[in-house]
């Protein structure tokens, strides 16, 4: 047995799909399960079904690169992700489950005067809105992560960085399972291998969902779908400002701990960290072409490897184990969408682009509060779908790390 075999979580599955629930959540990923978890544990709403097409966490929740951070570039996002970061810090204690949460500190490296300017501004804004980020120079970078080549492969010299000491990682699957188990223990039903075929619509109101296993009536339907949300939304005649792009990543074999910090560079376009198991995990930009394809590309692997080596040349002899892709729902402003849809009875949490994992607890907490109270929580009020029509976008392209 290896030390990472999941030895505590117990998942309990319902025997049958009922025809009516108070709340139906579409999507058994992190956001759907977190919402169910907080509904059941904070609001006593337990007549909840989570409908999942595959297995829990099979979408982006099991494909992301597991970074937790709050060093965003607009005030609303900083507050929201800071809440999420704090909820992550307490999640192991709350659930009693080991999600391999580890605070590592995140270095966001700048290679030009303009890069320095951006990272200084990020540190100032983060500090003002409650996230801990400081601007540091090459010497401090070297102290935090001695493996970084300050010459940056010749073309990308390291001139400074914003450092986010609370930046962390956790194992994505375990976050999903801990939340699923907590929800299940409190009466939530999670139905895997159940495909949604339609939404039940009565006038302007969504009254339930149709699935391959039968129709379900629901007081509230929440879409927490990654990658396919526009298709399901269109079943209610709803258009979302989302384009889906693949995002790729790769891991190496596992090694003893040694890369302590999370290293990212917007100008080089890559980020790297070491997983709890010891694999080096490297990701970069989204594929330019919108697509639902999960196929990896060699061009990505090769260029991403090359860019990573400019900053972390000691990785050259590590053997690549596996590459994969997830589908990112990109919004025009690089911020998520949470809240009402304009169809009564239908809520949405989407637009999770490349920043969804780190938002799981706060997103679930807020959506549960919205379902329970009918009121948009202040924390997510700016993230409503209506912000585009109101011309109040939350532009944060520079914080995606993956533009």
């Amino acid at each position, binding site marked *: 047995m290896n030390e990472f075999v*999941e030895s505590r979580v117990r998942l309990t599955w319902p025997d049958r799909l009922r025809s009516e629930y108070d709340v139906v959540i579409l999507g058994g990923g992190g956001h759907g399960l977190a919402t169910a978890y907080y509904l059941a544990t904070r609001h006593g709403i337990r007549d909840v079904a989570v409908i999942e097409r595959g297995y829990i966490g099979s979408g982006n929740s099991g494909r992301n690169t597991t970074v937790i951070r709050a060093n965003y570039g607009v*005030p609303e996002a900083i507050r929201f992700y800071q809440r999420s970061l704090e909820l992550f810090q307490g999640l192991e204690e709350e659930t009693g489950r080991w999600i391999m949460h580890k605070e590592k500190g995140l270095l966001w490296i700048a290679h030009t005067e303009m890069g320095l300017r951006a990272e200084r501004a990020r540190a*100032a*804004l983060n500090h003002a809105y409650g996230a801990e980020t400081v601007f540091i120079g090459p010497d401090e970078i070297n102290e935090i992560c001695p493996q970084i080549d300050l010459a940056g492969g010749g073309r990308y010299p390291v001139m400074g960085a914003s450092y986010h000491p609370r930046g962390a990682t956790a194992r994505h699957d375990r976050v999903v399972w801990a939340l699923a188990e907590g929800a299940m223990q409190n009466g939530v039903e999670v139905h895997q291998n159940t495909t949604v075929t339609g939404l039940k619509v009565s006038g302007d109101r969504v009254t339930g969902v149709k699935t391959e296993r039968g129709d379900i009536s629901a007081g509230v339907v929440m879409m927490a779908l990654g990658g396919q949300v526009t298709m399901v939304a269109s079943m209610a005649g709803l258009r979302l400002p989302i384009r889906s792009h693949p995002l790729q990543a790769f891991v190496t*074999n596992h*090694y003893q701990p040694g890369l302590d910090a999370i290293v990212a560079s917007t100008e080089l376009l890559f980020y790297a960290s070491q997983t709890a198991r010891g694999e080096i995990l490297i990701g970069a930009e989204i594929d330019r072409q919108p697509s639902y394809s999960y196929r990896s590309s060699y061009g990505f692997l090769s260029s991403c490897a090359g860019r990573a080596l400019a900053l972390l040349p000691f990785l050259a002899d590590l053997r690549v184990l596996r590459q994969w892709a997830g589908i990112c729902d990109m919004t025009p402003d690089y911020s998520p969408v949470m809240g009402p849809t304009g169809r009564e009875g239908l809520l949405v949490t989407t637009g999770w682009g490349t920043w969804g994992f780190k938002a799981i607890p706060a997103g679930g907490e807020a959506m549960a509060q919205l379902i329970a109270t009918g009121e948009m929580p202040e924390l997510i009020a700016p993230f409503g779908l209506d912000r585009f029509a109101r011309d109040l976008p939350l532009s944060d392209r520079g914080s995606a790390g993956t533009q």
Partner: protein
Amino acid sequence: MAVALLRQGIHPRGGGCICLGGDCPNCVVEVDGVAYVRSCQVAARPALEVARQTDTPRLPDESRPLETELRTAFADVVVVGQGESGLAAARDADGTVISFDAHRGEEAIGLYAGPTVVAKTPAGMVSVQCSRVVVATGAAEEQPICPGSELDGIFTKRAAESLRAAGIDLGDAVTIDEQPQRFEGSGRVEAVVTAAGDRIAASTVVVDLGLHPRSGLLRMGQGLEVEVVGDAALTDSLPPPPTEGVVCPCSDVTVSDLEAVWDRGFREMELLKRATLAGTGTCQGGVCLPHLRSYLAAKGVSTPAPFTARPLTRQATIGEVAAGYDLPPFRRTALHDEHLRLGATMDRFGAWWRPWRYPDPEAEYWSVRERVSLGDVSTLGKMEISGPDVVALLEKLYPCRVADLKDGQVRYALLLDERGYVLDDGLICRLSEHRFYLTFTSGGASFAEMWVRDWAETFDLDVRILDRTMSLGAINVTGPLARELLRRGGVDSPPAYLAHVDAAVFGVECRIVRLSFTGEVSFELHHPFSDSVELWRRLEEAGADLGSYPHGLDALFTLRLEKGHFIVGMDSEYDSTPRRLGLEWAARLSKPDFVGKQALLRTNRLPLNKRLLGWEMDGPAPIEGAILWQVATPVGQVTSARYSPVLAKTVMLGWLRSDPAEPEGISCDGRPVRHASHPFYDPDGARARA
């Protein structure tokens, strides 16, 4: 190498069934500092340093130079595998054929869209795009899953044949053809207990348990032109369900681990895999996949599918896959060496190397304000556009009027997207009735060309577009003595403010465009880049006694900030409408139509949530990005901040994230800040127009 080690009586990993087929992790060693190398796939040669791999290797301390090369090729057919069926497929294929033979160290690592096959070979990485792929990868031999499977002295049938062929004596080897109950021994196998319960003493056991197709590439190629031949096409039959022992030797997962997570609800192949890590190690399921499937089948899961096949099917290092990749280079203007000669520190700005300082920004600054200075603005986006519909197109593209421009006139313009957000800014110069010259920001140049072309196509307008960004250089001659320097260059009638003329300057044909970013009289000399050095040197020489000194970006940013000019992307944000920037005048909503007009008509009626404003304060400039506070509440952020030598105070642009009538009690960097109208310097623009 594995054979060489075994010949010496050394098990590469210390124990575990040896397959010599590249399918299992049991011969993994460290070769020349690279961990996780399957010794059966590497040719032994002198001076290779081989070490037994500790359970979890350490990260390397340092790196070696990258030496691997990437070769790209095209072929009609790629055949992966050169066994009997692979050879036949290569022989019978029409057109050009490229084959990869794992026995010669040519390992296909992945099959990608195209189809494209990437292989690691002794000569380097090879990427072949083709019309058709033939997967002839054969089949892997089933591994024994039972207690004792980690002992030394266990070989698959093929491995045993290879070893014997290499002259290695396997002694009293016993062959079994069913999954045994267990192996016994300590370190080395001493006996095997067969499925029937017979205990057979043997120091070497050969297992002949059947074949499983190596279908990774095939599954990876779903939806592509891929066919499969030979043993790789075998129907995969499931082994008996494992009952005890290690199922996944890479991650050390036992049957009881599977049992434990199954009992706690992990009942999908993927959940079982993710909860135990079985199949996520070096061999990517090569050993355990058939057994996991049969485990699940025995639990009543109907036809458990194999998990998704992903590259890499065989491993390569990060350094190897990076072969052929070069970091994006930064462009140099034709004047790059001139800047270096003048002692400039260069920085990368957008896609370009640009002079940052020469290296004294204060001297550069005063040279502009008081005398004359040269600036290299070759990086500006430049475009010539002509044709019968050119006015119609530009009227739609730009929010300002274009049709009323007279020949020789220049107009500053914003470029908006459909949401009414500022994409870029630049100049519109009218050359003649149907011919214009446009400039864009350095960072916006490549996007601008795409943008203009897209809209020309969308509106189906008859125009010719020529991107001159790379073919023309541009030098900004700026300062109160700029006119005198031009006169010395032979220009007696320089253009008036907001005008342009074509004229020779020191014999170099230039388009002289007059506007001002610095706040002083400025002439941009656009010219063929091949003349840039000549023109620069002549200007430099002729300006020497005028006190001319070139200026870099650092000084330019101060000069333009004193004038309150915003820079796209530095001061503006994604959602910057003309109204938010305080540039309502730049969008003429009375025009019949332009890109962004409909959005502006709608959003201009909404409450204004933020504004880019001018600010000033005493003392040195705070960082660009400093927060604007109203008492203890953050209300905005500075985007540009410079100490103004001529005004002896700090001037700034910054966003106020609310819309109070007059912002009161604002501070920044612990000091009071005053809202101030901009331009801060020469607000009437008398100096620029002089």
